[in-house]
């Protein structure tokens, strides 16, 4: 079938919208509320085109055979400009001074200043430790609501009211902290005007960096190194590990550690726990690296809380190790350490502030401050540090060495793959021949994989995106049997986390996933139990996986009902 766009013929398949066809062939139509991962709703009226002489929104109009589409007549330009004008008039003037999707669309349609002013004055919501909302910047595009409902199935925010009084609110008009919000932050990732952001800690970070008396230690999550380049104009999936390390040193950090190391540590503990659980027949075991998933499980499926692994997330393990093992090694009081982590995630901010995460006995949290990838990029730009021009440096010892298994934590299926590499060794007594488990990779919502260990079939499943997790849990509830289940709250895993650079869609996520597996491929050591630094930590400090000390520092408890805070 063919369609005529701007006097030229283009092929299309049934069910495609006009916008999809135009995008595929590089014809530009400005869009604002449209997001490729969501169902188009045609709210903003910016993507107007004329189809057979009728003005329609191209995002939700299906193409028809022989349809005559014009994308850029004078009349359309005028209408688009007016649509953007009305939207721009409805937000706080401050919003238009920032660089966001709205201002970029304004430039595209040639609008300098809004002609009207009718913005709302509402209270902003800073109740949550992870996510802040400012309704005065909101243009009611509905992306966040749809993401929360359709992709995460959390339903924490929704529209209330009607017409020009319609606002996005927590369910029941409540503040975000008292709704079912699990802090995954996907809403902040898709917001075109930064009305929803992470709970900002840049100001606190700058204050901490000025403090010369304290030892400043920072750790970088596996998925930050493949995404932060995007904020500096590099293409998605560019690996900039060494450059971030030197940029962080330049910012004023004394020591830079790798969260991949503590990911290896997580695998040691988790695989050991899995082996124990097989013996005790307390299955399935759910992974516990994702704090948003933990909140989701506690809130919506409290009967499965007993199945959650008790191991802490890599961030918290590193936090505990820095303020105990490393402090002892350097002969320094843990109170004089400032421990910061760079995460792709908003929920990690909340996790770090939990009362439980104080196992180092320094009287303070194990992790003092969490910055998202976006925040780090902003901070670097503020200090005029160009990531592209940095000379690559290596991580500091002893918590900087990692295996390939630790680095794939960033992608969905990675934790499972890494855990199976070690669990196979623990159960079978010999190494897994081929370390790549391709069945656990890819973008399918739920991935299943069976592996034979000691003549017994181990059934594993991986889900990403909380609506997929909900489906999987419903299946388990209705009697389906699994032994080991990994869940990541965000689509694609941590590389698609709520704190990652914008814009984010599947093409970007795929490039990041590819980069993650590339890092794994390049590593000589690809299994956590082979990492010499891990061996050293166990021989010097922790003794063995799941020892008394490891239990105290590296494991946690869960509330039986409701969220963690």
């Amino acid at each position, binding site marked *: 079938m063919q369609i005529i766009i701007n006097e030229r013929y283009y092929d299309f398949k049934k069910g495609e919208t006009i916008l999809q066809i135009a995008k595929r062939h590089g014809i530009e139509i400005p869009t604002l509320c449209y997001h490729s991962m969501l169902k188009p709703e045609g709210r903003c009226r910016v993507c107007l085109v004329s189809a057979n002489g009728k003005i329609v929104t191209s995002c939700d109009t299906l193409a028809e055979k022989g349809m005559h589409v014009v994308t850029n007549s004078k009349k359309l330009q005028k209408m688009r400009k007016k649509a953007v004008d009305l939207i721009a008039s409805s937000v706080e003037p401050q919003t238009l001074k920032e660089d966001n999707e709205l201002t970029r669309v304004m430039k595209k349609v040639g609008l300098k200043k809004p002609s009207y002013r009718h913005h709302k004055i509402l209270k902003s919501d800073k109740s949550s430790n992870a996510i802040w909302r400012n309704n005065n910047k909101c243009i009611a595009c509905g992306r966040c609501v749809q993401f*929360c*409902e359709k992709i995460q199935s959390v*339903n*924490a*925010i*929704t*529209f*209330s*009211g*009607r*017409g020009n009084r319609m606002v996005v609110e927590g*369910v*029941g*008009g409540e503040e975000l902290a008292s709704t079912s919000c699990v802090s995954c932050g996907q809403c902040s990732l898709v917001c075109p005007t930064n009305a929803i952001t992470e709970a900002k800690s840049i100001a606190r970070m700058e204050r901490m960096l000025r403090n010369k008396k304290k030892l400043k230690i920072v750790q970088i999550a596996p998925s930050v190194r493949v995404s932060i380049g995007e904020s500096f104009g590099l293409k998605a999936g560019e690996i900039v590990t060494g450059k971030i390390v030197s940029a962080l040193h330049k910012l004023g950090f004394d020591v830079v550690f790798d969260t991949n190391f503590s990911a290896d540590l997580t695998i040691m503990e988790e695989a050991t726990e899995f082996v124990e659980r097989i013996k005790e027949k307390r299955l399935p075991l759910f992974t516990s690296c994702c704090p948003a998933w933990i909140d989701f499980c506690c809130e919506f499926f409290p009967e499965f809380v007993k199945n959650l692994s008790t191991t802490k997330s890599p961030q918290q393990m590193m936090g505990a190790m820095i303020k105990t093992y490393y402090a002892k090694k350097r002969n320094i009081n843990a109170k004089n350490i400032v421990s910061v982590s760079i995460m792709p995630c908003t929920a990690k901010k909340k996790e770090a502030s939990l009362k439980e995460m104080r196992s180092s006995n320094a009287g303070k949290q194990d992790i003092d401050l969490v910055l998202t990838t976006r925040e780090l990029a902003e901070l670097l730009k503020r200090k005029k540090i160009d990531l592209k021009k940095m000379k690559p440096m290596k991580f500091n010892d002893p918590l900087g060495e990692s295996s390939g298994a630790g680095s794939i934590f960033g992608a969905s299926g990675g934790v499972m793959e890494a855990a199976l590499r070690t669990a196979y060794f623990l159960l079978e007594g010999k190494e897994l021949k081929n370390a790549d488990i391709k069945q656990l990779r890819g973008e399918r919502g739920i991935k299943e994989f069976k592996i034979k260990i000691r003549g017994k079939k181990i059934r594993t499943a991986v889900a990403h995106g909380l609506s997929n997790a909900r489906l999987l849990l419903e299946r388990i509830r209705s009697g389906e049997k699994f032994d080991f289940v990994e869940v990541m709250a965000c689509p694609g895993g941590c590389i698609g986390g709520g704190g990652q650079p914008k814009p984010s869609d599947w093409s970007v996520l795929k490039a990041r996933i590819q980069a993650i597996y590339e890092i794994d491929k390049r590593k000589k050591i690809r299994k956590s139990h082979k990492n010499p630094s891990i061996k050293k930590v166990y021989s010097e400090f922790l003794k063995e996986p799941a020892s008394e000390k490891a239990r105290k520092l590296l494991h946690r408890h869960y509330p039986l009902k409701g969220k963690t805070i």
Partner: protein
Amino acid sequence: MIAKKVLLNELGKEQKKKGFVSKKKLKEIAKNVCLPESEVFSAATFYSFLSLEKRAKHIIQVCNCPSSHLHGSDRIMKYLEKKLKVKAGHATKNKLFFLSETSCVGLCDKAPAIIIDGKPYVKVNEKKIDKILRKLK
């Protein structure tokens, strides 16, 4: 789709019975009609005939559709605000009257229209309002 049809019915019943739909009831209804609480809340705030808290004894709603506008619903609203000493969207101090706007009530041919406690009054003017309000007190 069935759930959504039932939803409005359920919300309407509760509104009629108690004069408002409490947050607790919202949760209950959501469970009964198998919809997420967010959707039920969204629907309840969309309609001006539903409310989430007790408003007042008498509820006065002024139609704000274009037809009523052309016939001076603005003037009527201002008159009511002055007379009852409240702003639109609020209740009087003695909790006797609640004044608000409503979207089109389908009486465009007899504009301006107001609705008091669910009963429509058409072609209203200041005199007519005085008369109606006197009866209500």
